């Protein structure tokens, strides 16, 4: 049974946003746990990042997949937001939520804003770390260390340098708080978009969504604050 264009339909757009969103949740969770390696020392962290870069071709495949997930997620999100403006060109003089069982919140209303800020952050973040000193196309002998006789990138040094700056540290912390706000609605919403929800599960999944969001955010925020305040 074919629709005119299944992935462009109102349901297809939500499916794509939900699937890519959940994929990105898995990605940020793994990224966050990887970051925590720095708590056990520079060498452990550098070993971990070296393991990732040594994946070679597989890493490119993963990166290409991530780029695709981000692009589809962002493009669909923007289209849904534009569609909303088109669907209600004249707004209400007075508008308020009717309250429970509505899940409308600052989080659900600000998905486009938190999402766009996260997208801009992503670009800055990749430029300053992945393509920063010692990274691809930016060889720098000051950011090379040896582990077991092998020369590897000293990414731990770059991380510690960047998070010595209050601007970077608190900017990063702020954006990670926005990530928590984004996930507060996002995780629950993605499951509903995939048709995986039933009324008896809604309160549970909504809570789990919030808890997972806070855990991811807390994991990301712990490292820069620990470095900035010289705790590690």
């Amino acid at each position: 049974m074919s629709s005119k264009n299944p992935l462009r339909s109102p349901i297809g757009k939500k499916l794509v946003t939900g699937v890519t969103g959940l994929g990105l949740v898995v990605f940020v969770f793994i990224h966050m746990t990887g970051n925590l390696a720095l708590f056990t020392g520079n060498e452990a962290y550098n070993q971990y990042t070296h393991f990732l870069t040594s994946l070679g071709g597989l890493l490119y495949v993963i990166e290409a997949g991530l780029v695709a997930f981000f692009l589809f997620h962002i493009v669909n999100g923007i289209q849904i937001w534009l569609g909303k403006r088109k669907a209600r060109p004249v707004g209400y003089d007075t508008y308020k939520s009717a309250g429970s069982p509505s899940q409308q919140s600052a989080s659900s209303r600000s998905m486009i804003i938190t999402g766009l800020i996260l997208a801009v952050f992503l670009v800055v973040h990749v430029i300053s770390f992945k393509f920063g000193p010692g990274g691809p196309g930016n060889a720098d002998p000051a950011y090379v260390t040896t582990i077991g006789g092998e020369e590897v990138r000293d990414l731990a040094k770059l991380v510690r340098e960047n998070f010595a700056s209050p601007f970077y540290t608190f900017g990063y912390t702020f954006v990670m708080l926005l990530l928590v706000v984004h996930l507060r609605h996002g995780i629950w919403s993605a499951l509903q978009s995939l048709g995986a929800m039933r009324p008896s599960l809604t309160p549970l999944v909504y809570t789990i969504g919030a808890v997972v969001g806070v855990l991811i955010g807390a994991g990301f925020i712990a490292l820069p604050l620990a470095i900035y305040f010289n705790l590690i």
Partner: protein
Amino acid sequence: MAENMNIKLKVWRQAGPHTQGRFETYSVPDANPHMSFLELLDVLNEQLIKSGTDPVEFDHDCREGICGSCGVVVDGVAHGPQRRTACCQLHMRHYQDGDTIVVEPWRAEAFPIIKDLVVDRSAFDRIIAAGGYVSINAGSAQDANNLPIAKDKADLAMDYAACIGCGACVAACPNASASLFTAAKISHLAMLPQGSPERKKRVTAMVDQMAEEGFGDCSNHAECEAVCPKGISISSIATMRREYMKAMLS
């Protein structure tokens, strides 16, 4: 005799589909707590007619909360502050003497304003016409247990069938999406043996028509469920999505 209340109404007035609308504020000194909200509008209209002004147009029919004709946004909430209540069943006892109430029409591109508080909801009719029915004559009610349907399914189908098509879901949705309306009908029919054979064709056609009409996309705010006078759950939207995926994969 209940004491009279003086209610101020800030009402959207718009002479026609293509004219500029504006708010007008009226004072209704003869309101009383026993009146329904629509009766308050009736009293206002009596006043307006006596003073030679055009009455405020608003849709209504049964005034028993079962026909789906009425519907206005009352102080920012579709159908007003009382849960699971169409605005015809909202009573003035929820208000105090001297209150000001803001009354606006449903606002959505797919629901163009005809006059004042009346909007054209024929987009809903076209979504139903796209597939919200059973093509064969399913006959009159079967003998009990002639066609076994599990109790939980029958109950759920009935919950979804309770949709009266008032449009509050669209009005309250921050995206002006018609997902709850469309999903209620799709889920209701998919759950029953009479509706099941056409479920794939139905979900595809109705979802396509919903997009065609210019409704927004759902963002899972669940505001629709909160204002639905029949309390239809957004689980119907999850069901619609599963139905759509199954239809696409077959």
